[in-house]
């Protein structure tokens, strides 16, 4: 008998239009929260999640340390707002931060009511841990797999809503805008390779960040800025893209994240002499210790920048994958390590070959998060009617020039829910669809995708272009930038875009063609990378994570503004938008004192 029996399935290959009230693109924390909020707002709405991976594979799963919200009696909303604004170097919109901090506790409690296994105090109440840049302990956690638990709780909860449809492993390629309204997307069904038309009265982008435009990142392979690029091409500006967060503690080589919770629980950073070098960079004095908002619990931008200075002074430790410093948690002891940060121990052991109970962990700064993203208002609405965005793919602007650790998971929930509710209201009042025009758009998009394989004489290999792009980004738009490095990155990206037009794919089949997906992802990354480089070139000041060696000072007179990058046929057009300042006027950013 032939052990490889063949069966026919998925017989229906009809080209019908699939229609829903709301499409959520992306199945991570923001997407799932948005979808649930939409069906709860209006149970009659037919909501669908379109995701290029099964939702539980979304990169939310890799978040480790925690989610911030005020719950303890020693804390206050005012303090969380203040920390977030200071952390943002005053580039966050203050009305948005207020809404965020106010809605955060209920969102995390909602997760608790849905079953999230938050770590607890002995009396059964929620436990919190300290985190960088926060004045008071307010980071909720579930050991050090918080993103994992949050994502799985949301996903499992989403399964109980009958009116929620999922298109798992469908890759959205284009937003369909007609008559000034976003009315759907075209997407590739990976299994069959077919380009399908999905119609909706409102679309919510929750597609995550784009860490993969850099060679050394904590981000998983799927973080390729697809939603940012789709919105950008549709005419929505990308906001504050020059602000790229480097997490101070990634494993050398792989870039695997070692959570900030390691420092929250008491871990220290030392250089080759065993010296806690952060005290030399405005985050000390080291004692008394531990102390919040000081030393190892400073903000990520400043700690990553301190690493560069230590390296230039020759005080870091040379390793096979570049220089490192040591994250030392030995003094916490085995029991605390195993209860509070077991995943750190597991990752360090597997991927760095050391046991943190007995040895310090080698770490270096690694690209982690995009503060920038699709420009939205406080409700997640973009300038295109019917198009919303939330999570890392969006820039609603609570993070400004530097995000505080543990604010982003909460952001996914607060603004995912807001976008879901507002999209539900929009979808209820805009029922008409321009079906014929949308179908024509989708047909054109299908042709474009089919033409990508390079049968007409392409020569460029996508892996090569990707490598050159990530190298250009690392060299030109790293922790410290200047006009020369940025201009060069812009030039390289421009030539890569030209070369992308001449790619050649090995795979010219349809079923599960991951090479075609990789090509489309690369195209998205090139758009996002250009927006980052040009936004950074235009901002001739230093603020938060954007440090210009040729313009080392913050310049509020000229740049207390959001950058808006618009797509054009040539280089992005850069414009600016005032930051919303309400009660917290810009001041000096002080840590350690």
């Amino acid at each position: 008998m032939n052990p490889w029996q063949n069966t026919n399935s998925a017989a229906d290959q009809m080209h019908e239009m699939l229609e829903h009230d709301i499409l959520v693109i992306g199945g991570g924390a923001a997407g799932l929260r948005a979808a649930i909020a939409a069906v709860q707002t209006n149970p009659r709405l037919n909501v669908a999640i379109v995701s290029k991976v099964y939702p539980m594979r979304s990169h939310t799963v890799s978040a480790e340390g925690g989610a911030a919200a005020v719950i303890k009696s020693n804390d206050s909303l005012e303090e969380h707002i203040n920390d977030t604004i200071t952390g943002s170097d005053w580039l966050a919109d203050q009305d948005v931060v207020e809404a965020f901090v106010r809605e955060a506790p209920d969102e995390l409690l909602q997760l608790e009511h849905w079953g999230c296994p938050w770590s607890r105090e002995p009396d059964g109440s929620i436990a919190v841990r300290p985190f960088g840049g926060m004045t008071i302990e307010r980071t909720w956690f579930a050991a050090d797999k918080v993103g994992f638990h949050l994502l799985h709780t949301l996903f499992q909860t989403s399964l109980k809503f009958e009116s929620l449809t999922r298109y798992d492993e469908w890759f959205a390629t284009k937003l369909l805008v007609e008559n000034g309204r976003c009315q759907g997307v075209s997407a590739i069904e990976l299994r069959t390779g077919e380009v399908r038309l999905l119609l909706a009265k409102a679309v919510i982008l929750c597609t995550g960040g784009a860490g993969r435009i850099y060679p050394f990142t904590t981000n998983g392979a799927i973080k390729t800025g697809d939603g940012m690029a789709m919105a950008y091409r549709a005419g929505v500006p990308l906001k504050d893209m020059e602000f790229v967060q480097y997490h101070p503690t990634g494993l050398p080589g792989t870039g695997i994240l070692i959570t900030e919770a390691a420092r929250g629980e008491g871990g220290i950073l030392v250089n080759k002499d065993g010296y806690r070098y952060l005290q030399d960079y405005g985050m000390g004095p080291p004692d008394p210790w531990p102390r919040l908002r000081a030393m190892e619990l400073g903000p990520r931008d400043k700690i990553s920048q301190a690493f560069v200075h230590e390296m230039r002074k020759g005080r870091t430790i040379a390793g096979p994958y570049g220089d490192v410093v040591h994250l030392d948690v030995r003094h916490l002891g085995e029991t605390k390590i195993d209860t509070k940060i077991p995943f750190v121990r597991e990752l360090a052991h597997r991927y760095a070959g050391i046991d943190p109970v007995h040895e310090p962990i080698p770490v270096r700064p690694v690209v982690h998060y995009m503060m920038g993203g699709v420009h939205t208002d406080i409700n997640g609405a973009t300038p295109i009617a019917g198009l919303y965005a939330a999570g890392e793919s969006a820039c609603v602007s609570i993070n400004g020039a530097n995000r505080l650790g543990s604010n982003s998971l909460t952001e996914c929930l607060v603004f995912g829910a807001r976008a879901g509710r507002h999209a539900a209201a929009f979808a209820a009042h805009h029922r008409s669809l321009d079906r014929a025009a949308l179908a024509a758009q989708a047909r054109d998009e299908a042709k474009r995708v089919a033409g990508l394989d390079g049968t007409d004489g392409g020569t460029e290999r996508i892996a090569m272009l990707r490598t050159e792009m990530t190298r250009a980004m690392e060299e030109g738009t790293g922790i410290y930038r200047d006009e020369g490095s940025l201009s060069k990155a812009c030039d390289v990206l421009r030539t890569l875009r030209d070369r992308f037009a001449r790619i050649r794919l090995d795979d010219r089949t349809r079923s599960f063609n991951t090479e075609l997906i990789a090509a489309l992802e690369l195209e998205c990354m090139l758009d996002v990378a250009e927006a980052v480089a040009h936004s950074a070139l235009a901002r001739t000041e230093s603020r938060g994570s954007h440090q210009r060696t040729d313009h080392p000072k913050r310049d509020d007179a000229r740049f207390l503004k959001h950058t808006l990058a618009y797509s054009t046929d040539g280089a992005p057009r850069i414009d600016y938008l005032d930051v919303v300042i309400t009660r917290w006027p810009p001041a000096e950013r002080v840590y350690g004192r």
Partner: protein
Amino acid sequence: MAEPTIALEIFRYHPEQGEAPSFRRYEIPYREDWVVLDGINYIKDQIDGTLAYRWSCRMGVCGSCGMMINGTPRLSCAAFLREYFPNPVRVEPLAHFPVERDLVIVMDDFMHKLREVKPWLIRGQETPLSEGEYRQTPAEVDEYKQYSMCINCMLCYAACPVYGLEPRFLGPAAIALAQRYNLDSRDEGRRERQEVLNTEEGIWDCTLVGECTTACPVHVDPAGSIQRAKVTATVDWYKDVLLPWGKR
């Protein structure tokens, strides 16, 4: 000296090319700190762009990259080439699942089963958020925590011969997930889930081979969860038979 290399023998199947699957051998550079996934990525980028597989986080938490590696179900991001060098490494799609293409399996059945067990908190009465969190002591969290760690990688299904022989079997991860909610002090849905669990295709198909627990990369111990579910179901049965007047 020439750089050392290692051979990966990879299962290839393409639905459009009609032929039976075959193995293709790729010679790749050997690096001590490479995992099998790094090797596969090298092939995809440098040698053969047509190879299809799933991956993302490369740190053992997204659950995408499960494969049979030399016959054992493993996460390819956690299986190091050095464990096999200098011998060749044979890479196949997860056993017991239909193969979509190359190393990509069809996971519809698994996704369906996850939903079957109602993996969400079920309560008779929802308490409003304004009353704060449901209290749960650290010991009560510990009661179900282990079963909440499942990353849905499906290695346990590939390790389970019962699932291979009887695809209707609910399977290790789905039962462990049901237990995760059953043992959660905030949950009141055990009786509802019992309708799916306490059946032939539920817990009673399990013959306790125990390989699901061996295969699990995050130490969920699905085999243990199934045995505990059997004990609970048996106790329920005795209670119903011996104390039919008792309150369920």
